[in-house]
């Protein structure tokens, strides 16, 4: 007989709040800091109610100073705390990039493990919500490229909570990307209390023998929609939600593409230098002789994420993904 775990029906952003609340309760060393995270509960309400419950010392409104508070959080992490830093939008992380790349990601290796930076940087990312310029970037590859930081990107409420708790407990810095478009687009049952999902492990959302479709974050619902359309045409797709972008789940990718021999990768970000290219490398390294068709990538374009009047043209759509699926199947 299994114990019934109480669950709540939560959106992704509520699951993020739930993860932070769970860990703020669980560990005294966890603190939350960022712009508007206190009284206002964050611009997306991701920290709603946390300052009221845990006080101004643990849920800290910082000055508008991404480099400053990210740097200060590094100092806190080195000195015994586990900061969760909220960057209001991923496109606002650039002033903090130096702190992340020259320090957060390197302090462990620089000091041979003497000083470490167990911190989480949370950032909503992505286009498709009619937000202003710079509020829509998906620059995960800037971080997956740089050694010393893990990059996590859930697409569902359940995964968001389990992965965020795992990130908070991780002994190294983790960039936690939250797809803005999925914040309130669906709800699911999320267990109360603490549970974790292993960083570095993807998830199979759908089984099919004809083609593998790989996506993450806000592109997961797009990939699923395309897979459902393909099924109507008799094409059965494996759909993988990567969930972690560094380190990638090599085994899950290899297992699926060796079965199907055909792959479509869906990436919201610009094509050049993107995570999709790393997935192509994994397929090349592990599964070259299984391939029956060239790998297709459906991505954003090599242009700055456009103003929102144009964002629907920029973003991969189920139609474009379906087209790519048919192309690799018919090859």
């Amino acid at each position, binding site marked *: 007989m299994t114990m019934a775990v109480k669950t709540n029906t939560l959106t992704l952003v509520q699951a993020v709040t739930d993860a932070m609340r769970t860990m703020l309760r669980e560990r005294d060393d966890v603190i939350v800091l960022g712009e508007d995270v206190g009284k206002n509960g964050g611009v997306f309400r991701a920290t709603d109610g946390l300052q009221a419950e845990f006080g101004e010392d643990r849920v800290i409104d910082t000055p508008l*100073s991404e480099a400053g*508070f990210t740097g200060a959080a590094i100092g806190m992490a080195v000195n015994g705390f586990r900061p969760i830093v909220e960057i209001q939008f991923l496109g606002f992380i650039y002033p903090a990039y130096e702190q992340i790349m020259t320090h957060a990601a390197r302090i462990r290796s620089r000091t041979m493990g003497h000083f*470490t930076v167990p911190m989480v940087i949370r950032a909503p990312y992505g286009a498709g919500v009619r937000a202003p310029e710079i509020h829509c970037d998906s620059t995960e590859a800037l971080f997956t490229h740089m050694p010393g930081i893990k990059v996590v990107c859930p697409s569902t409420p359940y995964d968001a909570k389990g992965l965020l708790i795992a990130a908070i407990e991780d*002994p*190294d810095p983790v960039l936690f990307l939250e797809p803005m478009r999925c914040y309130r687009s669906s709800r699911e049952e999320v267990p109360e209390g603490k549970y974790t999902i292993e960083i570095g492990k993807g998830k199979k959302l759908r089984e099919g023998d004809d083609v593998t479709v790989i996506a993450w974050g806000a592109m997961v619902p797009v990939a699923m929609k395309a897979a459902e359309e393909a099924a109507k045409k008799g094409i059965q797709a494996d759909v993988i939600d990567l969930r972690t972008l560094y380190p990638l789940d090599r085994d899950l990718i290899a297992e699926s593409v060796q079965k199907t021999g055909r792959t479509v990768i869906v990436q919201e970000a610009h094509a050049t230098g993107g995570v999709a290219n790393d997935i192509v490398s994994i397929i090349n390294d592990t599964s070259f002789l299984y391939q029956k068709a060239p790998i297709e990538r459906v991505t954003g374009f090599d242009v700055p994420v456009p103003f929102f009047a144009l964002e629907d043209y920029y973003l991969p759509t189920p139609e474009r993904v379906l087209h790519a699926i048919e192309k690799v199947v018919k090859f």
Partner: protein
Amino acid sequence: MEQQFPIVQVMNNDGELVMPEYREQITKELAMTFYRHLMRTRTFDRKCVSLQRQGRIGTYAPYEGQEAAQVGSALALKDDDWLFPTYRDHGATMTFGHSLTRILLYWRGRNEGCVPPNGKKIFPPSVPIATQLPHAAGAAYAEKRKGTKNAAIVYFGDGATSEGDFHEGLNIASVFQAPVVFFNQNNQYAISVPITKQMNSKTIAQKALAYDIPGVRVDGNDVFAVYFETQKALERARNGEGPTLIEAITWRYGAHTTADDPTKYRDQEESKKRRELADPIQRLERFMKREGFWDEQWAQSVQEEASREVEQAIAEMESYPEAKSDDMFDYVFAQPTWTIEQQKNEYNAWKRGSIR
């Protein structure tokens, strides 16, 4: 501004005590301690320049001329305080208890140089300018949150005050009332760019006004002034009165690093003059002679002891076990990711000759 932020001087260039209220505190023993550390740091620095010339260490950033600023401030710290240095502050870190061997290893390109002796909260030298200021603010805030009386000191140069992180660090420390001392060594040049091209402000200390924290200008070649002003700032920090910005006015005699030639951008006659007039060590010597604290034989023994200690550290540095290639793979994460593990294994297999 110069009037609002006068340069605090305890002894003048002639070694004359100009703030007699300190006479009681400046015992013979204290003067001897300062002299010993000043000689030790200068001996080490000169030796490093020569080691670089001989190819025994890599590019080196000398601090000769700035010893009083570094020694005076470091001696004001307590054992449990934090120290966040730049690459030119090993005079401070060695005074605070860093190992000479490890400092040498740093300049020999070894990560071991970033590992402080056990219990010492000495951060590795920050290479990106001013980025260490927010770290110090955060670490100091963490001490406050833990309810300790520990403080942090963070070093940076005049050029760093033009960086965003300087202002963000000061602002955050001020907002958080973090127990941190921002210790600026204004050596008046950022590599080749003189202070007049770095800022239109008359002083660096005045930048404290913007953050509503105390700003102090001290004669950075006066080890007593540096020591007492840093001590006061640390006391304020420990008492919950927040951060202080100290501007220690000094001069580096030599190059920015052994990779540049200062004669290209400034008249080295100026350095010569300053050495004759305001050298921090000679000034203390003059003071000690005036006060009857000086003993020629003792001074010689201090020099000999410093040389012996540095020579021993060099011997340890040179006999240190070779760096292992595995080290670059093993410390990126607590547990290596599969990409790192795979790259390490393949590289080692290639080295063994098992991959052709």
